[in-house]
């Protein structure tokens, strides 16, 4: 395998980690918005995602540094062509993180907490929508065969039917992921009533995911035919896996098989994401900027591969420690 391809796969893995873990966080915000003023439900969401949310979002920064170190020209083109949607997503991420950070801090009063929650929820919905729309837009411009008079990409239309569908799909996926995480965590801590509420949310959002994952190829067939050809071509196995996993997740939720429901919704996310990657590989943005044409020099790519190795060696054990510490019950330390 060539070095650019290796780095591209590392980038894909990093983006997948971001999409799943941060996606669950975004979803938590969406569920929080849906929970309205029911404090028990909102506390359940906060308890499930509180300790680890910060670490999840580091995957985004890591993905960005890989992207601009390894494929600088593609990073530049992305920033230029998608200035608007990326700026909106960025604002949403920041508002979201800060609202959550302040809400869980001991400083918040109930009234301020409610305002911060609404802000948190709205921003949690906007960010994945923008990312989903960007992904759809990129797939549409990158998978189409080269045509005359399109030398470079200076603008990527991100408000087309296909991009809007993928944006909505991203939102639904995030919400379903979060519902499956919270439901499982509630079952494990013995809170059956709350678990039931989030199981229902999981069913509702899961149904949306299934509908939208059927709708996306259908919309592609008319609005973005190039993507459609990729989806029934090289990406077909992933499309099938995604649809099966989505159905499985619904079924598992229905039969109260919580761990299976969570696993299947994670798999749905992975399949959708890699379906996108495969449908536009090896193009990063447009058909001229590929992982090969925009790759940095060999030495730079080698250095990034080593840095990525360092992340695996250091971060994965630390990540394990984090989850292990929070899986333990609290110690009773005498004051």
């Amino acid at each position, binding site marked *: 395998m060539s070095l650019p391809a290796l780095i591209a796969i590392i980038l894909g893995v990093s983006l997948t980690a971001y999409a799943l873990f941060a996606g669950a966080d975004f979803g938590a915000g969406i569920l929080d918005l849906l929970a309205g003023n029911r404090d028990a439900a909102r506390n359940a969401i906060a308890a499930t995602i509180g300790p680890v949310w910060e670490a999840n*979002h580091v995957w985004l920064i890591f993905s960005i*540094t890989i992207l601009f170190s390894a494929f600088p020209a593609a990073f530049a083109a992305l920033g230029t062509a998608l200035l608007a949607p990326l700026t909106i997503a960025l604002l949403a991420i920041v508002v979201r993180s800060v609202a959550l950070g*302040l809400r869980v801090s001991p*400083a918040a009063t109930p009234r301020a907490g409610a305002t911060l929650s609404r802000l948190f929820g709205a921003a949690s919905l906007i960010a994945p929508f923008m990312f989903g729309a960007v992904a759809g837009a990129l797939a549409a411009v990158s998978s189409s065969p080269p045509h005359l008079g399109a030398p470079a990409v200076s603008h990527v239309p991100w408000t087309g039917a296909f991009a809007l569908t993928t944006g909505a799909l991203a939102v639904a996926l995030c919400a379903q992921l979060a519902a499956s995480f919270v439901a499982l965590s509630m079952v494990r801590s013995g809170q059956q009533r709350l678990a039931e509420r989030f199981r229902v949310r999981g069913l509702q959002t899961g149904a949306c995911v299934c509908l939208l994952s059927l709708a996306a190829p259908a919309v592609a067939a008319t609005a973005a035919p190039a993507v459609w050809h990729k989806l029934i071509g090289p990406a077909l196995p992933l499309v099938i896996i995604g649809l099966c996993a989505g159905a499985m997740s619904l079924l598992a939720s229905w039969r109260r098989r919580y761990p299976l429901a969570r696993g299947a919704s994670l798999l749905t996310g992975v399949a959708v994401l890699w379906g996108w990657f495969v449908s536009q590989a090896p193009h990063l943005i447009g058909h001229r900027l590929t992982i090969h044409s925009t790759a940095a020099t060999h030495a730079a790519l080698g250095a990034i591969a080593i840095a990525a190795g360092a992340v695996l060696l250091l971060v994965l054990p630390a990540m394990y420690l984090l989850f292990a510490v929070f899986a333990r019950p609290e110690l009773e330390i005498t004051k």
Partner: protein
Amino acid sequence: MHAPPTAVISHLTAGRSQIGTSLSFHLFFAVLGVGLPLMMLVAEGMHLRTGDPVWRALARRWSKVFAVLFAVGAASGTIISFELGLLFPRFMAYAGGIIGLPFSLEGAAFFLEAIFVGIYLYGWNRLSPRAHWLSGFPIAISAVASAFFIVTANAWMNVPRGFQIVHGHVTHVDPLAAMFNPAWATETSHMVFGAYLATAFGIASVYAIGMLRGRRDAYHRKAIAVALSMAAILAPLQVAVGDLLGRTVADHQPATLAAIEGVTHTERGAGLNIGGFPLPGHNGEVLNVKVPHLLSVLALDNPNAPVRGLDTFPKANRTPLAPYVRLAFIGMVGIGTGLVALSLWYWLRRRRGSVGPEDRLTLMAIAGAGPAAFLANELGWLVSELGRQPWIVYGVFRTSSGITTSPGLGTTFTAFTLLYVGLTALTVWSVRRIAARPVEGLPVAAMRAA
């Protein structure tokens, strides 16, 4: 693409203002992100050693503030990583492959930090006291590592190495040579010391205000003592590192040196301008004391060495903001000198008695030192960033060539400025509310026992 002529500020100015605002905002949180973990570790370590509950109360209080600052700092850092591509895509296309290594390593360090922040902040009641204290070390270490990696990238922008340009294309990239360019050591240590100092003076300042309001107890005294101990050790070191960094600039950025030191015309055996405020129409002569030959000695180790004046550089290659660079530099050095004097004064006076000086004047000086130390950090970055103009990479790549071709920067600049105003208000509100809560886990008797 150019902004329409009716725009209030130009396309380039809007982009530069937006990233400048983002960096100044982020710097405040980055500085505390580097400094506070060390202070928390010291306080928690003192608690483990002495069993004194005041230390634990301090560590817990600081960790709560840190939680808020870390959340905001992570968000403002994310903004900058995006903005590099959104505002300066052509610069990133040029430089990304050369200085990507430190950015990727910074990603790894930030990752570790975020994970252990989770463990530390939520782990007070889940880990043994010793294990909890130990879980703070990776935070302090990776925070310094993050600052180190990012500043090596900035050092590269000032003294670019490790690549060649052949037919307009970047080739022969040596990521290690780029990262360990001639400025890496002095710039990174100046930043890390600066962060520790600002945090120490910031903490001392908060508690000095408390004492001025009459809260003269062990809690306040210990906080000031630990903060000013750190300051007393680091402040003189920072002066020495600053001098070394000045030499780095003299060796590699002659145009920047001329702007910093206010050298308009080339001088053989150049004197050091002390004061010399660049007011309009006065050409740097306002309140100036010139120490003969000192600049040549400081910058070039030779009392008769010539220092190039700003007017020997083509107009297109000198910073258009030279007076501001000079002002920022005077401000930074002036504040630094004052801070050294203050920490020495505190420790000289403390030697005589067991308690540090608590007269109104000293406390007021300490109270003012915190904001001043943060200001010195901001001014130092202004010197680095404005002093390098018109280059984004000194001598090879112009800032105007790096800006995006996408329109609408006026709008994004406005949006982000509003965001920062909101974020500042929220942060201040939140930290003030934490500060207003009674100190937990501390019997009143312990507070009084001074």
